[in-house]
């Protein structure tokens, strides 16, 4: 035990001695959490709409007014020339075009049906489908309203009424969803980079040989390397939770201790992974690229930015090996929904097994001989 304490002391001296490293550990994550949470938004608040109104009737005006009145839309231009509208899309001055054809209102009264065309800039496919569903919603509501007005049985509307209820995030605020995820991401990046650089740095500088001849066994060695960064990452997590609470007023719906308990297991996975990388690489550059390579895959498949359910099967299977996916999911469940342990115990057990496996990898890959 005493040996471990000595290694701990050595590691902390090294961390606190590096004047540039300390702000990296403390200030950068907080700044990033603040900035990124505002930046990482799929919300579309201001769709710039071009209205091409060939009909110029009362009905078409009312439809365009509906769009103009919606908080999601801004009328960028109104024209009677379709080519001009598409040019605006091309120059990126607008995102969506609504085309109301000639005789729209006439065909609506005579044939009881009429058609509107929506043209959306779909380079960003997900934004396009969201914009499309916004527009559909507005037109759908308008359609229901005119049915109510024209229905002979006054005020009846559609027979089957839909009442939506949005749970856990009724304002549909995207930040609420992103903050818990980004928090996990930052803690992971910090932990993984610090540990993956650590042993390999001693190798490059040559101090590893002093450690090798010292009377430390591999368990002491790994424990001494792991615990300091575990404490640092845990501290970062708490800091981040405070930022979430006070800057974004996202309080933790579930139990804080449950969250910290899961986090402590998760950090063992990440840090052992980093140490494992550090044991088999020769230079810091190598270590950086290996850990970067895994981080990118972990992040992209983690469901942080895009829902895991929309990924293809094989990607979902890959996620069984992705610690980030487990913890982001659990963290969101605890923070937003107030889920309890029984709701995610399977994921937690997988994390625990993962931690054990990675820890033994790191321990047994470490060689005292050069």
């Amino acid at each position, binding site marked *: 035990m005493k040996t471990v304490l000595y290694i701990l002391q050595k590691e902390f001296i090294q961390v606190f001695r590096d004047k540039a490293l300390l702000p990296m550990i403390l200030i950068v994550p907080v700044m990033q959490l603040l900035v990124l949470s505002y930046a990482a*938004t799929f919300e579309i608040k201001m769709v710039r709409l071009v209205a091409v109104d060939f009909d110029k009737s009362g009905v078409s005006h009312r439809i365009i007014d509906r769009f103009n009145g919606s908080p999601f839309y801004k009328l960028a231009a109104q024209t009677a020339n379709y080519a001009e509208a598409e040019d605006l899309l091309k120059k990126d001055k607008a995102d969506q075009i609504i085309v109301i054809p000639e005789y729209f209102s006439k065909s609506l009264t005579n044939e009881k049906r009429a058609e509107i065309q929506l043209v959306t800039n779909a380079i960003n496919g997900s934004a396009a489908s969201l914009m499309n569903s916004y527009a559909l919603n507005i037109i759908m509501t308008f359609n229901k309203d005119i049915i109510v007005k024209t229905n002979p049985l006054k005020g009846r509307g559609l027979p089957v009424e839909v009442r939506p209820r949005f*749970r856990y995030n009724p304002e549909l605020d995207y930040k609420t969803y992103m903050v818990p995820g980004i928090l996990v991401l930052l803690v992971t990046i910090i932990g993984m980079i610090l540990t993956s650089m650590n042993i390999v740095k001693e190798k490059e500088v040559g101090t590893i040989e002093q450690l090798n001849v010292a009377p430390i066994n591999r368990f002491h060695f790994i424990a001494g390397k792991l615990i300091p960064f575990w404490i640092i990452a845990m501290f970062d997590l708490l800091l981040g939770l405070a930022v979430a609470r006070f800057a974004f007023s996202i309080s933790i719906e579930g139990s804080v201790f449950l969250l910290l308990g899961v986090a402590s297991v998760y950090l063992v996975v990440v840090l052992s992974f980093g140490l494992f990388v550090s044991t088999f690489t020769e230079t810091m550059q190598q270590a950086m690229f290996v850990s970067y390579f895994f981080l990118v895959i972990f992040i992209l498949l983690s469901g942080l930015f895009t829902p895991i359910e929309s990924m293809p099967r094989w990607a979902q299977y890959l996620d069984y090996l992705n610690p980030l996916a487990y913890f982001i999911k659990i963290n969101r469940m605890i923070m937003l929904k107030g889920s309890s342990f029984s709701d995610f115990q399977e994921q937690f057990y997988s994390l625990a097994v993962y931690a054990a496996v990675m820890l033994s990898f790191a321990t047994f890959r470490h060689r005292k001989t050069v």
Partner: protein
Amino acid sequence: MVILFGIPFVQVLLFGFAITNDLKNAPVAILDMSKDVVTRNITRKLVSSGYFLLEKNLQANDEIERVLKQGTIKMVVVFESGFARKLQKEGKAHIQLILDASEPNTASMIKAYAEGIINGYSFEMLAKKGNIPLQINVRSKMLYNPELKSVYMFVPGVITFILMLISVMMTSVSIAREKETGTLEALLVSPLKPAQIVVGKVIPYIILSFINLLTILGLAKFVFSMPVNGSYLLLLSESVLFIIMSLSLGILISTISKTQQQAMLTSMFGLLLPTILLSGFIFPVENMPVVLQYLSHLMPGKWFIIIIKNVMLKGVGIEYFWKETLIIFLISLFFIVVSIRKFKIRLE
């Protein structure tokens, strides 16, 4: 080396195949308290639409909260009891949609699709009774990317990202490494001029970046059949300009930082993450708060992404993006001047 070429390969493939926001087969649960012909019909309509996957049939109200908390089910559809009877007698019945809105976009898309399907059913019902309702049909057209492939969005981003990663991170770390191990001094006392040293250090990375660029473009074209609608020559020369910009930034970082670790952390946190998030790579810049929009102007990657999208997807010529090109040019000029200044100071 393997990793240098592996990263772009894996990234493009992952982005291309795995990263989508399209809604299909969203897991839903149904709580049917009346179990009659109408509710069964509506359920069938919802399931056969392809957007939803019926995962569970719930029996009681208190199960709703539990399945939502477990996290797989995205929406619970609740039919009120006596649904068909009410519809017949009062001409009206309601369906409640309870959505897991912790992910707001999926929730609002699911809601829009479900509501559309249920309204469609209402229209049919009215039409059958001879009371044809006014119906506005919407024909949607997706311009530039009709199949809503996310590759179209991501390939320009990945190109930018990889070029930056290799150029900025690799150069800054490799120069900082020479500093740390002391070999830089050996180079400096040699009869080489500082400019020659820098050029010599940089050329391998230019070649590397260029090979990666071609790999990504090849993947995009042959695996994802993503078109290059504009001119290849224009695309490649803009890329070279961007590579030069990134390299000069990398040199700048390396002259500022003392150790490899510092250089690495600076380029990782100061550059890569902001580039991913603020350049319009994944998240559209227009929707960010104004402060961040101004901040995003400082991201060289943002301008380059605009250029690539213009050339590859819209197929327009330089008259549409000469401003962006000029900005990248000025940024690289700035970096080069500053790093030459810094480099000379270290010589003394």
